[in-house]
């Protein structure tokens, strides 16, 4: 019961301390992680947004430059000059040298007929009148196409400028190198998972993406989700990867630049931070648990020890209180017994007196009368002795301090009991430590103590027993152990052996005061008496007497 009470207390302490320690730890860890993640997220979103803005700016600039060059040429030469392919080639070479990325250059008349051409493809003589872009450029004046395959059967896009020359109107058209353009777009790709590409309003790739797709293929990104400003979304693509996507429309509003990045790569730094935090919390938790368990166990063990000591002390106090109370009561009772004893004694005396009368002297039963009266007197004497012992002891209780040699006292006591022991064929063995110092105590009272214990041992052991008397130096006491190999004390009797009038001896053989007096003497001398008994194996009494230095003389 007691054990489980302390175990329960220990559990309550541990749970409470852990709760109080872990709650703020985890709360703080969680909040910190949340805040860092939030800040980190904002930062990478800002970065990707910034990259999208700056990249659209450069692509816009690239297209604007190319358009401006074409417009400048168209505005400065006339139709006849430009139809001369020598001139056209010269212009082509100059603009490629200055700006680059032009694949070819061609002139188309207002009927859609390709009149002059410089470039790698054989397009001269083709008619574009039916091509959708032709009507576009004729109405708007400037036109940048989506990527298409066209006559040459390979993906490309064109920039076309219309020149109005009097009533005649013609078109200067160029193809932009898809590799160079794609290269510019791709320069926004970062890291292992970064991607950058352009899609048109229908979601068709205008440049080749890095992953999962090809130019003119369909993207799974929905361009309508990207509004007027730069939009950053988190999307899960067809491969199940979480990607952060920033999109910004180019100035022509038909092309959308998409920059995307795998979230896990971008958040790598944060993951590291999170792992560090988890590690710190883990180590901290282990330390907290260990410290809590160890300190709680130690504290509870100390508490248990203190409680045990307190209980022992209480039991001792209770015992001495009980004995003192019993003593007082016994003294009162004994005193009250004296009066009836006195009457009995006088009455028997009176009867003896009367038996001396002549008439009674010759009675037949006179001897019987006298013997009976003697018996009564004997028993009154016995009762008187009990009272005498008890009160006589109480009277001379104050110890007298003198130099005492414990070993010598033991030897004397044993020699007093030698005959009694021999009569019962009991051997008394002594193992006396030679280191026992002379101490200040009361020799006659100690003798009384040893006498009581050893004579009890002789009585208890019966015939052919062995009694061992040992002396030893304890920490602050001189210890005397008196062990017999008698029958031992029954457990239910063990609690009562120091009580007055408690005896296991036959009626009339013991007063039951011996151990009570012994206990009180040892207490008064500042020592302690205890015993250890095992039924069938014997009993050992231990008397501890304070090792007080002898008085100065």
């Amino acid at each position: 019961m007691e054990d489980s009470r302390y175990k329960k207390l220990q559990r309550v302490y541990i749970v409470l301390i852990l709760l109080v320690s872990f709650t703020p730890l985890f709360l703080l860890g969680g909040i910190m992680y949340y805040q860092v993640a939030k800040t980190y997220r904002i930062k990478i979103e800002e970065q990707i947004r910034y990259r999208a803005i700056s990249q659209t700016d450069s692509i816009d600039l690239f297209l604007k430059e190319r358009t401006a060059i074409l417009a400048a040429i168209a505005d400065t030469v006339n139709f006849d000059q430009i139809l001369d392919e020598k001139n056209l080639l010269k212009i082509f070479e100059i603009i490629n040298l200055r700006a680059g990325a032009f694949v070819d250059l061609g002139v188309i008349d207002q009927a859609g007929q390709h009149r002059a051409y410089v470039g790698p493809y054989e397009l001269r003589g083709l008619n574009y009148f039916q091509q959708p872009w032709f009507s576009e450029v004729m109405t708007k004046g400037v036109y940048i196409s989506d990527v298409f395959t066209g006559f040459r059967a390979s993906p490309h896009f064109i920039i076309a400028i219309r020149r109005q020359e009097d009533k005649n109107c013609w078109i200067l058209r160029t193809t932009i190198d898809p590799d160079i353009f794609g290269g510019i777009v791709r320069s926004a790709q970062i890291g292992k998972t970064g991607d950058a590409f352009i899609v048109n309003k229908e979601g068709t790739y205008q440049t080749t993406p890095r992953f999962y797709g090809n130019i003119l293929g369909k993207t799974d990104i929905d361009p309508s989700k990207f509004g007027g400003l730069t939009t950053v979304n988190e999307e899960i693509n067809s491969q199940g990867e979480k990607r952060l996507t920033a999109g910004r429309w180019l100035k022509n509003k038909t092309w959308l630049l998409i920059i995307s990045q795998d979230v896990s790569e971008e958040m790598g730094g944060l993951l590291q931070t999170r792992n560090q935090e988890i590690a710190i919390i883990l180590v901290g938790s282990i330390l907290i648990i260990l410290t809590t368990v160890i300190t709680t166990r130690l504290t509870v063990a100390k508490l248990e020890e203190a409680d045990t000591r307190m209980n022992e002390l209480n039991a001792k106090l209770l015992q001495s209180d009980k004995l003192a109370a019993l003593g007082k009561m016994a003294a009162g009772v004994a005193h009250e017994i004296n009066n009836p004893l006195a009457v009995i004694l006088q009455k028997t005396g009176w009867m003896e007196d009367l038996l001396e009368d002549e008439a009674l002297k010759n009675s037949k039963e006179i001897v019987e009368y006298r013997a009976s009266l003697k018996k009564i007197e004997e028993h009154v004497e016995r009762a008187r002795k009990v009272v005498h012992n008890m009160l006589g002891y109480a009277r001379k209780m104050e110890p007298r301090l003198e130099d005492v040699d414990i070993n010598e006292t033991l030897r004397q006591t044993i020699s007093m009991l030698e005959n009694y022991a021999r009569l019962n064929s009991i051997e008394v063995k002594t193992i006396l430590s030679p280191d026992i110092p002379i101490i200040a105590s009361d020799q006659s009272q100690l003798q009384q103590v040893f006498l009581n214990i050893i004579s009890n041992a002789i009585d208890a052991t019966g015939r052919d027993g062995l009694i061992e008397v040992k002396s030893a130096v304890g920490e602050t006491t001189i210890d005397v152990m008196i062990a017999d190999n008698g029958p031992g004390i029954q457990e239910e009797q063990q609690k009562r052996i120091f009580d007055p009038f408690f005896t296991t001896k036959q009626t009339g053989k013991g007063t039951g005061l011996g151990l009570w007096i012994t206990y009180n003497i040892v207490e008064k001398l500042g020592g302690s008496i205890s015993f250890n008994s095992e039924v069938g194996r014997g009993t050992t009494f231990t008397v501890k007497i304070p090792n007080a230095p002898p008085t100065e003389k």
Partner: protein
Amino acid sequence: MQDFSVLVVDDEEDLLETLVNRLNRRTIRTHGVTSGEEALKVIKEKPIDVVILDIKMPGGMDGIETLREIKKINPLCEVILLTGHGAVETGIEGMSLGAFDYILKPVRLEELLPKIAEAVEKKRGQVQ
């Protein structure tokens, strides 16, 4: 009859009666009373040499008070106190008030008679 007289004071009537009878039987002129007040009356009226006085008498005067009064009336009267063991201290106090001796109860007549004799001896010595 002996040439001295004894007064026994004890509230225990059984004891008192027997003790008086036994002393009388041994030719000692003995009176018996059960209280201190009665004892003082007897001492005023009769020549008493030795008083055997029980210390513990509930109700009325106790032994010590009676002893004081006796000594006031007749300082030469010797008093032997009878005490239970518990009242040893009172017995000693009685000695200091001029009691001849104190005897622990229960007492055999064989022990009491020599004490009475000694007390009588002492009184006679003082008178002479």
